[in-house]
């Protein structure tokens, strides 16, 4: 077990290296350069100025050397200075914004897992009755409708029609509610669907019948026997779910004016902010990889048939 964790953690290094290399290559292969930005509102620079800037940022060196320098610095947690926010280092910006995104993502995932499981179980236990329909329609809406559209509806409903929550900001727990719900609905829908399907399968399995036959109460049958088995396929979903919440957060953060990392996904790419692109993708990638490891370990803890 311990060995497995160490081995998996060591695998993080080549994974991140590959990710860094691909991003680096794609970034430099795309037309447009940070020295001659195609971004909105940018002025063209004179060739001399471009040359000077290239020297300062090390962009005049050959690509392999640039990549090596980047790796050396990144290993020490130094991602350089942002090309767009010239007075701040990338590490500073990320230190400020990543925790906000992390909190939002964690809240949303917690809600998605708890809500999705509840809805899925209700739907399976009360199959083809009201709870089933409620949870299936909620799941459908959550999956089908883009989260920026959901955000608009939620703001209209819960900020204007029933003024319960503010339309944006990130100062008090009350501000957290709407962004969290918006971000959680899609993964919640997916989890609910999967839980329902796998619960329905498990409820009809022989061991559930045995549990009932030996006189266990309905509660114990559902939670101790059925849910534990039905949960396993759902856990597999959690990995990709982290990714979905991560990309989704850009829209949610921009609508609710959450000061998180999400906006840098797009801003860094359109602004050709090379250091920022690398840092954002790698932070995201590392986070995803760690989460996938956690999910795999959770898998083993839940299912005694899986041994490492």
């Amino acid at each position, binding site marked *: 077990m311990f060995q497995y964790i160490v081995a998996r953690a060591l695998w993080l290094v080549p994974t991140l290296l590959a990710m860094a290399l691909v991003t680096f290559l794609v970034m430099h292969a795309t037309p447009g350069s940070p020295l001659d930005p195609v971004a909105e509102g940018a002025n063209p620079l004179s060739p001399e100025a471009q040359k000077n800037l290239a020297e300062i940022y090390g962009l005049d060196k050959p690509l392999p050397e640039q990549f090596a320098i980047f790796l050396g610095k990144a290993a020490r947690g130094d991602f350089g200075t942002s090309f767009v926010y010239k007075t701040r280092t990338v590490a500073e910006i990320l230190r400020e914004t990543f925790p906000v995104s992390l909190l939002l993502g964690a809240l949303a995932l917690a809600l998605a897992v708890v809500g999705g499981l509840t809805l899925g179980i209700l739907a399976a236990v009360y199959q083809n009755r009201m709870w089933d329909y409620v949870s299936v329609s909620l799941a459908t809406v959550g999956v089908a409708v883009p989260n920026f559209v959901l955000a*608009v509806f939620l703001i209209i409903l819960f900020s204007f029609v029933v003024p319960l929550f503010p339309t944006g900001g990130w100062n008090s727990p009350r501000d957290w509610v709407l962004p969290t719900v918006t971000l959680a609905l899609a993964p919640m829908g997916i989890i609910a669907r999967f839980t329902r399907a796998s619960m329905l399968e498990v409820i009809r399995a022989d061991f559930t019948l045995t549990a009932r036959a030996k006189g266990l109460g309905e509660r114990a049958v559902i939670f101790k026997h059925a849910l534990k088995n039905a949960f396993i396929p759902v856990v597999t979903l959690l990995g990709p779910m982290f*990714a979905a919440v991560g990309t989704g957060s850009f829209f949610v953060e921009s609508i609710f004016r959450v000061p998180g990392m999400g906006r840098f996904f797009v801003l860094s*790419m359109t602004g050709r902010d090379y250091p920022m692109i690398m840092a954002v993708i790698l932070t995201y990638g590392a986070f995803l990889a760690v989460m996938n490891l956690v999910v795999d370990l959770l898998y083993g803890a839940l299912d005694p048939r899986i041994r490492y």
Partner: protein
Amino acid sequence: MRGQGPRSNESGEAARSSNLWRDGLRRLRKNRLAMAGGVVILLLCLVAVFADVLAPLPYTKTNFGRLNEAPSREFPLGTDQVGRDLLSRMIYGARVSMLVGLGAQIIVVLIGVPIGALSGYLGGRADICLTRFIDVMYAFPRLLFVILVMSALGAGLTNIFIAIGLTGWVGIARQTRAQVLAIKEKEFVDGARALGAGFGRLLTRHILPNALTPIVVSVTFGIPEAIFTEAALSFIGVGINPPTPSWGQMVGEGQQYIRSYWHLCVFPSIAIAVTMLSFTFFGDGVRDALDPKLK
């Protein structure tokens, strides 16, 4: 899960292939939710085609005396930040959404099906390379990749087609490959080969027609995904070029003024939600109709 092949009825499928589609259509007709979705999609297509006739005003017509007006008799859905009629812009927005949804899917099929079919049929090293490549593409968050491509190519409708086509073919290639792999070992393929059918004929006449069901299902789900991608890109501002109206872009711009002018983003939001739900219902219906076992 959605889109896996109908393994069990493959052998009988060739003999009653015309019946499969007829049965499917019958089952689809009985599905009320799917039919409702289909009707909405049809209406949206009509709106998109006849936008020039339906729109009361040109979508570029500004009116600086009537900015951000709430819905009224003159402007049924109100006016936007530069006094353009919101209803007209919504009608032309339908055109963009439908074009992207259908057009991008055509590109996706044209790239994905041949690659998947060849890789599945030929096997060997080409197949290994492709599967590895597909796995890598799957690991990348799709939307991020599209944004990256768009920021490299620049905004515009053609580039949206390219970006979605470049990233979207992977799923359909994977499906086609799996189908072709399963079907190429069947007796009827051997039979056709024994009768002297060449490589091209085998693939296009004998194997692909039998692999169509999951491809059709995957296309019906691909359309709303493409529409969503366009809306999301335009929302960020790297999608459609203004002044061409797109629902996503209207939501993106309108949500900044949601406190003062709710109508700016609410109507396009409703349009996106209705479109996405219609395609989802219709797609679910098509999947269940063509392959009842998958339900």
